[in-house]
């Protein structure tokens, strides 16, 4: 029985490692990256994944070994602890965590420090509310909060290959602006307008989801981010502008 248990632990470890090995080929992995810094976010993710994998193999391996060996012949002397072992298993993970914190610092600064914000006007204001997304573009004057602002629900249109700055605001509770393909996730807090920025590297329509449980309709709070060429983007905004100037008659 003891040895069966130990083998089960090893089998579990093997299945886990095997499923990670085949995941990318079978489409179980992250959606294909579409932002200029996505590869670096993925590199950080992979780095952490390796750390976790080593820890998992070590701990499960030790566990399997201990179970396999078992108590050979009746009760042994109780163990009161080992100072040297405890120092090792405190300092080693601590060092790993400090290393992880330092290795992601450039990415954090580049994506969240105000000093790193790309110059230029806000591309759109993202308004999150229970349970939908609205997008407000500044219109011709390049300023938000004026009469020529243009608005649309559900789908945010951004240009490919350009720095896009978004201003996130929430109307009611905390939401989170999450676009997996762009590796963008930022909480949206009421009363705290927040700027984020990214550059989309290929055209496409990407899933947008609320990633902060915001109420009973949280699961319905879906949207899209559509990346278009400059010309198509301009055409889209011109359509919104024509709608804004519509006189209510025949089109």
């Amino acid at each position, binding site marked *: 029985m003891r040895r069966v248990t130990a083998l089960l632990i090893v089998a579990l470890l093997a299945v886990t490692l095997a499923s990670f090995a085949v995941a990318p080929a079978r489409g179980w992995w992250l959606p294909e990256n579409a932002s200029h810094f996505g590869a670096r976010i993925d590199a950080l993710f992979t780095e952490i994944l390796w750390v976790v994998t080593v820890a998992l193999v070590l701990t499960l391996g030790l566990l399997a070994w201990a179970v396999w060996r078992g108590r050979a012949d009746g009760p042994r002397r109780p163990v009161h602890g080992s100072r040297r072992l405890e120092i090792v298993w405190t300092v080693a993970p601590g060092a790993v965590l400090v290393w992880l914190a330092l290795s992601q610092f450039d990415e954090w600064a580049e994506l969240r420090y105000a000093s790193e914000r790309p110059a230029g006007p806000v591309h759109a204001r993202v308004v999150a*509310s*229970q349970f*939908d997304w609205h997008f*407000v573009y500044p219109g011709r004057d390049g300023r938000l*909060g004026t009469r020529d602002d243009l608005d649309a629900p559900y789908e945010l249109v951004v240009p490919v290959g350009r720095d896009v700055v978004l201003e996130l605001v929430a*109307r009611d509770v905390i939401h989170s602006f999450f676009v997996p393909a762009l590796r963008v996730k930022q909480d949206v807090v009421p009363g705290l307008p927040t700027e984020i920025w990214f550059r989309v590297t290929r055209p496409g329509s990407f899933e947008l989801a609320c990633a902060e449980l915001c109420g009973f*309709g949280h699961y*319905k709070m879906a949207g899209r981010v559509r990346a278009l060429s400059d010309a198509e983007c301009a055409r889209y905004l011109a359509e919104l502008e024509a709608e804004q100037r*519509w006189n209510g*008659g025949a089109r």
Partner: protein
Amino acid sequence: MRPHLLLLLWVVSSAGLSSGCGFDARAAQLEFGLQPSTRATLAGSPELLAQLEQGLAQRFGTPAEPRDPSADPSRGPSDARISLAQSAERYRVECLHCHGVDGGGDGPTAAHIDPRPRDFRRGIFKWSSVGEQSRPTHEDLVRVIERGVWGTMMPALARLDPAERQGLADYVRYLAVRGEVETQVALAVEETGELDDAAWDEALELVAGKWAKAPSRVVVFDGAVPEASAASIARGRELYENPAKGNCAACHGSSGRGDGPVAFKLDERGRRVPAYQDAWGFDILPRNLRRDPFRGGRRSIDLYRRIHAGIQGGPMPAMSTIMTPAEIWDVVHYTQSLAEDVHPAEYAASEER
């Protein structure tokens, strides 16, 4: 607490969660009911009430098998790619928890929502393109479903197919027609004391007729939407303040924050409470015009229509008889200027009512 008491608590609470607290929206479990006003009208005669309920089921079907005896003539057969029964299913998923089985604005979550979800059964809809006392057009309903109503819990359902949104609009219209026919028949029966086919036909014709007229009641401005100028904004401000013209400041306040002198009254204990109720009996406050966009949409034509035709079901009056189109545009421009350059935090803050 003793372990067996904890166990008992766990069993009781999980039993409660799995049975009573969930809301079962499967079609077979749902039935249309009668409106409280109908029950009040025919309180004296239970047989007539039963007859009315039976007649409604005969003509309009059930939530699982809805039938529309007054299908919208503006919607050709090619438009109805989605059947009314399919739209009813979609309604149960997306709308029922607020708007209720009958469209009475009384679903399980309705009590927690302010402003309350719309009660469709009177046929009154606020955010439309039409003149006074008109039913909305099909496009009006579709637009509200697609874009939601800013500042309320009505979400934008732009993630659905266009055909699904159109189907939902059909179903909302169906619930509205059903509700109003019920009311009309109850009133006719109260008068004559008997319920016959003629009463049904007459009510159906009356209600369907109101909806059929909607496309001809759309408010359109002849010509291009005028550009805002400093002069127009200044004229708009005068009209906004002028008691003989717009008189907007009386409700919306000189600052536009919805705090005009007649918006509130004092109750018997001297507390400041909303002075007006809407058609559904709920307290209503004038819009804070410094928070853009507005509920009925932020296009210039939306504001123009709001001022031209008023807002149905609320105290906002139609101004088309008091102001010329040019004057209405001046007020639109002034209103838009009130909403400019508001801090994003205030812009996004929740509305009061």
